[in-house]
């Protein structure tokens, strides 16, 4: 087995046994990037040597890809947007500091939808990433580059960010494990904000154990992020037990209605049977406000985004453009020209949506109402988790769709996040793990949700399922 095809825990074991060195692991990954990434395009850039890793601190020397919206000191961080062209943060995000301390090996910045706006990684100023399972299909998004890098063995680990499903949906589409932690579990300091009340950084990995290890490294309270939670970080690898006997798991009926691909439904039902066979108890539950989740999300998320993206005005960093002739005033001309050239269509769409719903006269009907419905959606989950240990759903209603299929139809693109959005609105943790393939041999993702700070429950159920099935061992035909 080539080292880049191994999992993190396998590599660590080989290093411990002195059968491999960190450098060999890193080189194997770089070789794969050299060989495959012209085709896959998971990375938008590779890091400078001095920023990659420090052998002196390499306790956990695992090659990792970083989504292009997480700040790394001295490396361009652009969110795959022209407007941040040339921007190099003078500081490391908290998760990067933590990774550097454990000696992780930073490979490069992974592709994404511009500012994480999208579900296909097609909204990137660098062009799309291909799905390793089918180069004509999207890897999902917005963390499509991270998921594709892990799926194609161009990274052992990757960091993604998840605002409405941006880690889980691409993980599902690419056949890897992706976790959105509880809101506040991982510091957002240094994550370029899309929607501050929804964003979380999380791990993308080849199996559940690797995801648990990576979460253990990046999680924890950070005094620089007022929204991070001062909750002790447990040893997540201790939650990797093959036992779900007696666990009560809910199946929300609202998630199995029209729009779901029959192959997906079949795979989820089969997964439920696997877990039932291991002793889990399944019951139908209701999350009655599910149908409002997408509408609520696109009000709350775009409102916050419209404000978060206001800073890209050409004044201090990134792109600046002045039209050849004065139109209004030099300053307003500069703002307009810069933002017109700097942002892609989806970014502009979301800025306009958000600006609209925050405008005077509309605020109460849109933003305020959105916040109220958000509370109702959260209460749906609170009620279920009073009696249930977890909820199981598909990660996405379909498998990976074709490139270009939905890019002209934003509404159908938004619907691909229908199962993932509620976890962000509620702040609860959710994981996507591979649970089979469609007839077209495309990966299908199983989503497990738990109550806030219930990551250990997610790992336990996911691990039990994974260890009973072959899916996580499958590699795409590259």
């Amino acid at each position, binding site marked *: 087995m080539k080292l880049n095809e191994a999992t993190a825990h396998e590599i660590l074991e080989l290093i411990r046994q002195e059968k491999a060195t960190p450098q060999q692991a890193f080189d194997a990954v770089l070789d794969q990037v050299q060989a495959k990434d012209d085709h896959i395009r998971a990375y938008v850039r590779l890091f400078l040597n001095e920023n990659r890793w420090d052998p002196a601190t390499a306790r956990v020397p695992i090659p990792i890809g970083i989504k292009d*919206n*997480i*700040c790394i000191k001295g490396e361009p*961080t652009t*969110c795959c947007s022209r407007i*941040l062209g040339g*921007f190099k*943060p*003078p*500081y490391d*995000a908290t998760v990067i500091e933590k990774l550097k301390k454990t000696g992780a090996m930073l490979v490069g910045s992974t592709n994404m939808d511009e500012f994480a706006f999208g579900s296909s990684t097609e909204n990137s100023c660098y062009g799309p990433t291909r799905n390793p399972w089918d180069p004509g299909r999207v890897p999902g998004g917005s963390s499509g580059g991270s998921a594709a890098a892990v799926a194609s063995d161009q990274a052992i680990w990757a960091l993604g960010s998840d605002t409405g499903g941006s880690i889980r949906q691409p993980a599902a589409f690419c056949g890897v494990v992706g976790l959105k932690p509880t809101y506040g579990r991982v510091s*957002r*300091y*240094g*994550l*370029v*904000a899309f*929607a*501050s*009340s929804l964003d979380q950084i999380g791990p993308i990995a080849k199996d559940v154990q690797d995801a648990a290890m990576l979460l253990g490294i990046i999680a924890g309270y950070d*005094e*620089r*992020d*007022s*929204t991070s939670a001062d909750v002790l970080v447990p040893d997540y690898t201790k939650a990797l037990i093959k036992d779900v006997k007696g666990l009560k798991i809910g199946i929300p009926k609202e998630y199995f209605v029209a729009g779901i691909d029959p192959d997906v439904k079949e795979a989820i039902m089969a997964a439920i049977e696997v877990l039932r066979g291991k002793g889990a108890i399944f019951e139908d539950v209701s999350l009655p406000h599910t149908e409002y989740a997408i509408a609520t999300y696109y009000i709350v998320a775009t*409102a*916050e985004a*419209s*404000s978060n*993206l*206001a*800073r890209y*005005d050409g*004044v*201090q*960093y990134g792109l600046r453009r002045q039209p050849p002739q004065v139109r209004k005033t030099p*300053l307003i001309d500069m*703002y307009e020209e810069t933002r017109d050239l700097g942002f892609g269509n989806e970014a502009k769409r979301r800025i306009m949506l958000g*600006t609209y719903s*925050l*405008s*005077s006269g509309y*605020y109460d009907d849109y*933003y305020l109402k959105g916040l109220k419905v958000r509370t109702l959606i959260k209460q749906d989950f609170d009620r279920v988790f009073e009696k249930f240990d977890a909820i199981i759903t598909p990660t996405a209603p379909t498998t990976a769709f074709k490139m270009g299929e939905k890019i002209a139809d934003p509404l159908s693109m938004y619907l691909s996040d229908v199962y993932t959005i509620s976890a962000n609105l509620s702040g609860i943790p959710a994981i996507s793990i591979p649970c089979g393939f469609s007839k077209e041999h495309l990966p299908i993702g199983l989503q497990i949700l738990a109550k806030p700070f219930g990551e250990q429950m997610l790992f336990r159920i996911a691990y039990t399922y994974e260890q009973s099935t072959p899916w996580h061992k499958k590699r795409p035909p590259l």
Partner: protein
Amino acid sequence: MMPAMEQRYETVIGLEVHLQFSTQTKIFCGCANVFGQQANSQTCPVCLGLPGALPVLNQKALEYAIKVALALDCRINTLVKFDRKNYYYPDLPKGYQISQYDKPIAQDGHLLVADENGTTKRIGIKRAHLEEDAGKLIHDDQTNSSFVDYNRTGTPLMEIVSEPDLRSAKEAYDYLQALKLTLQYLHVSDCDMEKGSLRCDANVSLRIKGTSSFGTKVEIKNMNSFKAVRAALEFEERRQQEILVSGARVVQETRLWNDAKALTLPMRSKEEAHDYRYFPEPDLVPFVLEESMIASIRCSVPELPRAKYERLRQTYGLSEYDTNIIAADQDIADFFEACAKLYGDTKKIANWLSGPLLQEMNARKVGLKDMRVTPQDFIVLLQKMAENVLSNLAAKETLKYMLDTGKGAVLVIEERGLAQLSDSAALIKIVEDVICQNESVVQSIRAGKESAVGFLVGQAMRQSQGKANPKMIGAIIRNKLLGSSITEAY
């Protein structure tokens, strides 16, 4: 008969005061909160609004805000919540200002404001909230370009909004003075309008006297001193009056005070058409203030100027004039009370504090804390005057040397030989000299022009280099020229 047209109107003014807190660090990051440093030297990813940076509330700024709220008798909103105020300007690096919108930290307070006749009026404080200051634009006319200095970005600000309770420019001025004094007592800001640590905007409208609805208001900005506030408001009052008297309507707008031209001019209307799109700041989690925190801050609020004024007047029987001066500075008031414990003639203490000592402070441009005199020394000085050891003039001289050297009164009097000449023989000698040298004046006194005695006293004082006891000199002259008894005179 109808009153004159302009007397039919009543002025309605509300002030918005922005106060910069003098906390060590900025409101949402650890950068030093200092004035006058090299441009952009006091910045970090947070106050520069760099992508990914997040705000963390400075607890000290919160404490200061609560202190101000308590001093202004406000109701405190125990749910601390911040909002984003969205607008574009190059000095605002995030494209929004973190402020407080629907839950200001303080609401419904008031301040008692006295005019020079001692009449007090209660001015309502509508709200006061915490927010971050913006940066500063620096325009270079030579290259026709603008630069941004972000050092000021993130300085903690408290915006204090009065009710429209002010009825004249003078009243607004008095309110601003009283507010400044109260804020100075709290030690939360240096309250310096020239440095911009205290800034003031005004809303001005006129209405027909006796009506309760408001006229169209005009916002006045760019008033950079107390004098400018008063002048701008007086100007605006007249301007609106003329408009109304002529039958026209006042336009709702923002006007800028031009100090050089002494008038207000309209701001370009484009710059004020704002929809700030306030919404809750998602990067700062709302939290509830502990009652114990408010209680401990309440203990740190000192006796406030108005209360101090009343107490000093009542306890020591001081004049309004002296009390105003003493209560206008906490250090002076403390100094006064320390002196009053040591010496019974509080009137004398007050006179010498508000007179010579204050003059010396002004001349030296320092506060009382930097003056090299203790209450004990100061009392010795006053005692020496009472004992006729020092003349008024010599006492001032002594004080000056005391402040220059830091030495006590007794030592200074001795070293400088400032003790009064009360030795009759020596004084008689001086008077005799003066009489010889001023023949014609002597004649006129003898002829009945008694008022000219003062002139001779002055001459004698000069000859004694200020050391002579002027009362004795006067008595000796009268005795010599008019035959009155010496003892009678003093």
